[in-house]
């Protein structure tokens, strides 16, 4: 095997016994890590396992407490990103390091500007950027302002930024966490092209599918330690998941039978029109009964966000009605909905789900803080709030030093658990969950899924919107496919496959409109 040959060769980078301690945390505990020239090497592990720390040490952002780094078999001292750049190592950060009001060319060249006697030569910069982009198979407008560009494009700019500095080794920290499925697809292409050009790629991810698709080798970390490095052909998703979590993990959720009860919500002819007069959500109807999970599948950006925001009172419907237990809640705001027993796990946990500058307790009561159990006429019941938050931290296994810790110091997975804990602790009758496991690790995903299924078993209803087909397939009872603002198909989950859903998601097929409406409103199952 050709591939194996260069894997056997001397590694390009060897990190030996890397240890890094932050106040109270041993982030890297004597970690060994090595990467061969020209390989795509995945670095996986749960949130907080120390992956980012290890890579920031390699890139010179963090200083290591002990350990050695060898580059081409020579001991090197990477004390800042500049030193890393000089070795040809570049990093695409999880949180992009781009300056939004500046143009693409200014962002890419910043710090390595092309200039004559201090005066920028932007024309030359643009030319070089276009060439670099073409080399790895995409097109970019170097004059565009970064603020106007999508996340996917911004990530390409970050990659170009690294290539512009003539990096031979690219580190990508969770590059797909923020991307839509199409964007992930084109990132794969870019990375494959880079590999063909002889670049070495290290990418951090939670998603084992990506590891299997893309990587040559994979290193797993857990609790600051390296627990093993495997060649992709010689491992499996299950093995990697078990290594990450340190115990057996169920990649498929156990779905018990749940009795379907009364109808909880009935939505009819919902339409959302944007300020340009375009219908982003068009004529959507559905109903959900007790003990039922109604999944909405679809490629992101087909109106799911708008549907959820209008349903949960953040935005308004331009027409249509929503009834919950017979009362009309079409125009209800978030507060009224919570009082009606409708919980909401928002799509974007940092933007909608929590206030990172608030403590765990404060985030735990957020939105419910006016309820009688947390507030008297004038004052908040602080003790009560803390007590409930502590119980939830315990029950939902949220890793935090205390309930007084700020939300921003929690890892993404724990932030998400906190939001799930908040919504479930209020015993909602109906839960609207949008991308409930986005960007969190396998262990946390498993946990969230189990909790959601428990609610279903208790007779709660769930509207689940997700762009992860696996998630939709394993949790839902009925599945609607949303395409360009409409439901284009509805299935019972045991009558369809991922492949079939995929076809409808691309819009190349659709079911009869009347049939979709009937099935979404649950009329078929009534005749069972």
């Amino acid at each position, binding site marked *: 095997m050709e591939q194996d040959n260069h894997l056997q060769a001397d590694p390009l980078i060897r990190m030996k016994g890397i240890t*890094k301690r*932050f106040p109270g945390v041993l982030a890297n505990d004597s970690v060994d890590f090595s990467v061969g020239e020209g390989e795509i090497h995945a670095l996986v592990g749960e949130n907080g396992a120390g992956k980012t720390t290890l890579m*920031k040490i390699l890139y010179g*952002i*963090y*200083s290591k407490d002990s350990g050695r780094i060898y580059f081409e078999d020579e001991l090197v001292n990477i004390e*800042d*990103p*500049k030193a890393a*750049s000089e070795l040809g190592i570049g990093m695409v*950060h999880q949180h992009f*390091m*781009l*300056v*939004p*009001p*500046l143009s693409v060319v*200014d962002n890419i060249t*910043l*710090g*390595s*500007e092309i*200039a004559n006697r*201090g*005066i*920028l030569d932007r024309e030359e910069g643009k030319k070089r950027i276009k060439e670099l982009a073409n080399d790895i198979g995409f097109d970019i407008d170097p004059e565009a302002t970064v603020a106007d560009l999508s996340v996917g494009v911004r990530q390409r700019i970050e990659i170009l*930024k690294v290539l512009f500095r003539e990096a031979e080794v690219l580190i990508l920290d969770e590059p797909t966490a923020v991307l839509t499925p199409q964007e992930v697809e084109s990132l794969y292409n870019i990375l494959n092209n880079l590999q063909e050009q002889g670049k070495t790629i290290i990418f951090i991810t939670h998603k084992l599918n990506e590891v299997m698709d893309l990587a040559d080798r994979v290193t797993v970390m857990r609790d600051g330690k390296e627990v093993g490095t495997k060649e992709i052909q010689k491992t499996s998703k299950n093995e990697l998941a078990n290594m990450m979590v340190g115990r057996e993990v169920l990649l498929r959720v156990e779905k018990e039978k749940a009795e379907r009860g009364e109808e909880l919500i009935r939505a009819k002819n919902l339409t959302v029109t944007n300020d340009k007069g375009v219908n982003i959500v068009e004529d959507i109807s559905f109903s959900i009964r007790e003990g039922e999970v109604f999944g909405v599948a679809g490629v992101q950006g087909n109106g799911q966000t708008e549907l959820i925001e209008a349903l949960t009172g953040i935005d308004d419907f331009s027409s249509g009605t929503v009834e919950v237990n017979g009362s009309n809640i079409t125009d209800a705001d978030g507060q009224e909905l919570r009082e009606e027993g409708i919980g909401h796990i928002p799509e974007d946990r940092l933007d909608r789900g929590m206030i990172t500058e608030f403590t765990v307790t404060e985030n735990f009561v957020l939105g419910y803080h006016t309820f009688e159990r947390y507030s008297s006429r004038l004052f908040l019941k602080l003790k009560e709030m803390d007590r409930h938050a502590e119980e939830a931290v315990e029950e939902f296994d949220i890793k935090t030093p205390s309930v007084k810790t700020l939300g921003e110091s929690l890892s993404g997975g724990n932030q998400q658990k906190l939001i799930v804990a908040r919504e479930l602790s209020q015993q909602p009758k109906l839960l609207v969950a949008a991308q409930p496991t986005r960007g969190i690790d396998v262990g946390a995903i498993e946990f969230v899924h189990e909790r959601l299924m428990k609610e279903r078993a208790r007779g709660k209803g769930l509207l689940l919107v997700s762009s992860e087909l696996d998630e939709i397939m394993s949790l839902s009872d009925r599945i609607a496919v949303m395409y360009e603002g409409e439901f284009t198909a509805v299935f019972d989950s045991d009558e369809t496959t991922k492949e079939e859903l995929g076809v409808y998601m691309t819009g190349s097929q659709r079911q009869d409109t009347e049939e979709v409406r009937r099935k979404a409103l649950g009329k078929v199952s009534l005749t069972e």
Partner: protein
Amino acid sequence: MDWLTNIFAISTLLATIRMAVPISLAALGGLFSESTGVINIALEGIILMGAFAGTIVTNTTGSPLLGLIMAVVAGIGMALIHAIASVTFKANHIISGVALNLFATGVTFFLALVLTGGSQISVESSLPKFLGLSPVIYVTVAIFFFSGFFLYKTKLGLRLRATGEHMAAVDSVGISVTKMRYLGVLVSGALAGLGGGYLAIEQANFFTKGMSAGRGFIGLASMIFGKWTPWGAAGAASLFGFSQALQFRISIPFIPDEFLQMLPYLITIAVLVGAVGRATPPAEDGNHFLKEG
């Protein structure tokens, strides 16, 4: 309709230009500082210091040019204190600025009393006029042209502006955030100091306590109204200059003169109420750079 013709008289135009100089220099100074994300409300005190230093040096050396240079140096000195406090020691930018303003008010008044026994000092000489206007006015116009070029077309200008928008990004490509911020703040001190020197030596021909009279703040308002661009700031400063020029030049029947003298400040408030919210300041305004790990 006497007052109406007065508004459009050539003398009003010239007065507008004269009034606009210190305001626009303060505005440009604010812009340099905030382009690196450091809020500099010490501009007010810097103008005052510049005016005082310029006056004393002009009178003792007999050279208004040396006076102006000292005004700039005094401005840089004040700005250096602001940079040390707010960049190196990460003090709150506003508090550091307030402290410097109080310091400037007190110290100039005190020294004026000690040196001359009064709170007003007349300036004994000024630069020869060129085409009827102070050479500083031409210099100011040149500074604006240069700044527009510097900020948008040069490497250093790009780095300054990037610092005000995303410090971590600047740091991650190996540029020193601290150096950029010092540069921005010191330039702002130099500009506002020049504005102060001009105010005392070239415009008023005297120093008096508290003579900055809000010009630093109006300069900041101009910067905001001008959306943090040099030409916008210049335009806004001219508007304020015009309203200051008017206050002494017109007297409208039935409207008390005192009311007209409030005009510049009223316009400031009106403009800020109208303009703030629509303009976006540099994202890192007032933030501190904390390097991780």
